[in-house]
């Protein structure tokens, strides 16, 4: 008997999901078109102030986003092995290895993007990125614009640090004007700032609806939607789509519905970058036990709200990997408490020594402060060889059993 073909569920083209998916795809196609027109295009770090290229009317694409996409679609091992064959250590970030392989191969069926004419680097997310981008710049003989945002030992961003960053932002703007011939406009910047603020406000408000029980969304949705916050938060269509997302989540709450299918028995916070090569396995391990990952700092990290240029400087100095452990802990503790989290699942991400290094102590403090169990598992944001499904499953089941026992008290 011929098996009935499974039909993909149709997605309403006006839904946030469809619109956000289309914006994320358009970020790549816009770059391709710009390159074809002869415009200079860039590769850009995810926490580089996107307002700068957006105001200048420059098209950029995001190697981290591309590497995540390649890894999620099964190309991580192939690309990492390619880089390792070229002499890059398997101890460095898998995003970097994939990106460096792509720079050489110039094609990947999982996610293509045009080759860069300049690179925009900002080390507020990690310092491995500096060497990664320097290698690209040297190999391709193209300019690299580097913004140094130091690790902040204080809770607030000082005036001196703001001035240090402000001067670098202006220097980056002037360099880009010289390289591309495009001109900065304060009026256009104001528009972009407002749009980026709209996107960010809607995004953060949408993620905050997880405070409702049940949460109106499956937390793994955020991992898809955040691509737009990384690549297009300064674009009007992104702001509008994020506002649609927020409205949908509010409607879901009103109707008692959720994109998390099945009963939401437990609510957890997920810590760390997603384990992209094993997204299905990590999601299924949770969903099959009725666990909804209701919040993660990884998603909220891409919401930037500020009122002026100096505010923008401070906002980019206030991203998760750039702040001290107490500040970072307090932000996460707030997320746990606001969203009634019952457990914390930590991805010990072999690619990200910085993030995984401080999580051992930080997660202990969060667990104590919130009175919740903390469980970690080994994995990698893009190299599939650093994950074991059976080991993950045992840890998640152990976490579930503690949360279940806690409910019985």
């Amino acid at each position, binding site marked *: 008997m011929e098996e009935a073909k499974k039909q993909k569920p149709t997605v309403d083209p006006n839904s946030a999901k469809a619109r956000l998916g289309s914006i994320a795809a358009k970020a790549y196609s816009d770059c391709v078109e710009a390159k074809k027109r002869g415009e200079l295009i860039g590769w850009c770090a995810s926490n580089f102030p996107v307002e700068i290229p957006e105001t200048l009317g420059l098209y950029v694409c995001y190697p981290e986003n591309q590497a995540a996409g390649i890894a999620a679609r099964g190309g991580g091992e192939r690309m990492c092995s390619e880089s390792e064959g070229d002499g890059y250590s398997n101890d460095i970030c898998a995003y970097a290895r994939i990106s460096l392989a792509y720079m050489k191969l110039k094609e990947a069926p999982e996610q293509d993007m045009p080759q860069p004419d300049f690179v925009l680097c900002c080390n507020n997310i990690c310092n491995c990125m500096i060497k990664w981008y320097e290698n690209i710049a040297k190999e391709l003989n193209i300019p690299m614009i580097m913004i140094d945002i130091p690790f902040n030992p204080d809770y607030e961003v000082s005036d001196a640090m703001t001035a240090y960053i402000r001067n670098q932002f202006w220097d980056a703007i002037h360099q880009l004007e010289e390289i591309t011939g495009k001109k900065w406009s304060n009026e256009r910047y104001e528009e972009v700032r407002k749009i980026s603020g709209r996107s960010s406000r809607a995004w953060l408000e949408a993620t905050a609806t997880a405070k409702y029980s049940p949460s109106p969304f499956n937390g793994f949705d955020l991992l898809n939607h955040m691509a737009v916050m990384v690549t297009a938060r300064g674009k009007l269509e992104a702001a509008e789509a994020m506002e649609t997302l927020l409205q949908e989540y509010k409607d879901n709450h009103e109707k008692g519905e959720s994109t998390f299918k099945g009963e939401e028995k437990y609510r957890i916070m997920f810590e760390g970058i997603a384990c992209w090569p094993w997204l299905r396995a990590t999601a299924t391990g949770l969903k099959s036990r009725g666990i909804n990952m209701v919040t993660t700092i990884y998603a909220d990290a891409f919401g930037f709200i500020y009122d002026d240029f100096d505010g923008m400087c401070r906002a980019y100095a206030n991203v998760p990997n750039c702040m001290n452990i107490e500040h970072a802990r307090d932000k996460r503790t707030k997320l746990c408490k606001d969203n009634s989290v019952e457990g914390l699942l930590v991805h*010990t991400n072999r690619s990200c020594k910085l993030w995984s290094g401080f999580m*051992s102590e930080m997660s*202990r403090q969060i*667990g104590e402060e919130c009175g919740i*169990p*903390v*469980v*970690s598992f*080994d994995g990698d944001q893009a190299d599939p060889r*650093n994950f*074991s499904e*059976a*080991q993950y*499953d*045992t*840890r998640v*089941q*152990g976490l579930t*059993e*503690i949360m279940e*026992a806690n409910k019985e008290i």
Partner: protein
Amino acid sequence: MYTLGVDIGSTTSKAVILEDGENIVASSIVIATVGTAGVEEAVKNVLNFSKLELNDIKVVVATGYGRMNYDVADYKVSELTCHALGVHKEFPNVRTVIDIGGQDAKVISLAANGKMTNFVMNDKCAAGTGRFLDVMANILNLDIQDLEVEALKSDNPANISSTCTVFAESEVISQLATGRNIPDLVAGICKSVAVRVAALAKRVGIVEEVCMSGGVAKNSGVRNAMSKELGVDIVFSKDAQLMGALGAAIYGFKKL
């Protein structure tokens, strides 16, 4: 009323039949990797010994890495919970359980009622697991049971500093080549496991009493080294290897 707990580990399958959640009626340990043969034999053994049939068993609970593939089970529970329950029955005052199994090491915190409150497991590295000891016994041409005997003969344990199993293997071979005696090497290997797992235990927090469970607990070389590393006495059961299966049977009784 009978419950059956089976613990399908990476190197052995264990089965325990429990009567009324209290009395162990039969137990069996079969050396076999994850799969159906080992567990089937272990279950056959306990049924034969107890003169019971599977129909006499009210609840079957599976644990261990092979639990998901054991379709006979009514419940599939992590070995974390099962070791906690098993140890609590044998030693009600225990608050920290160190379970070193074939492919992982776990440190479990228990509340006074035996409930698991927290746990930590080894990372992806094989160091600090039973597999590490298997590899080392193999290169020294010893049976795994002989490690304990050899370790006790040593008064100057070798320093095996590599955390990687493959590197540690090279280190042991190098020391053999330079004439280091077997007992000192074995004691060093046991100490290496203890140091690695003790670091895990310190992360979750040591609260006395401390118990070791799992097959490695029977090795006094590792147990003594662990006790020294942690600065606490360590209790253990002669049935340490059965704690997971026992806990599974207890879990089944609690579900009745």
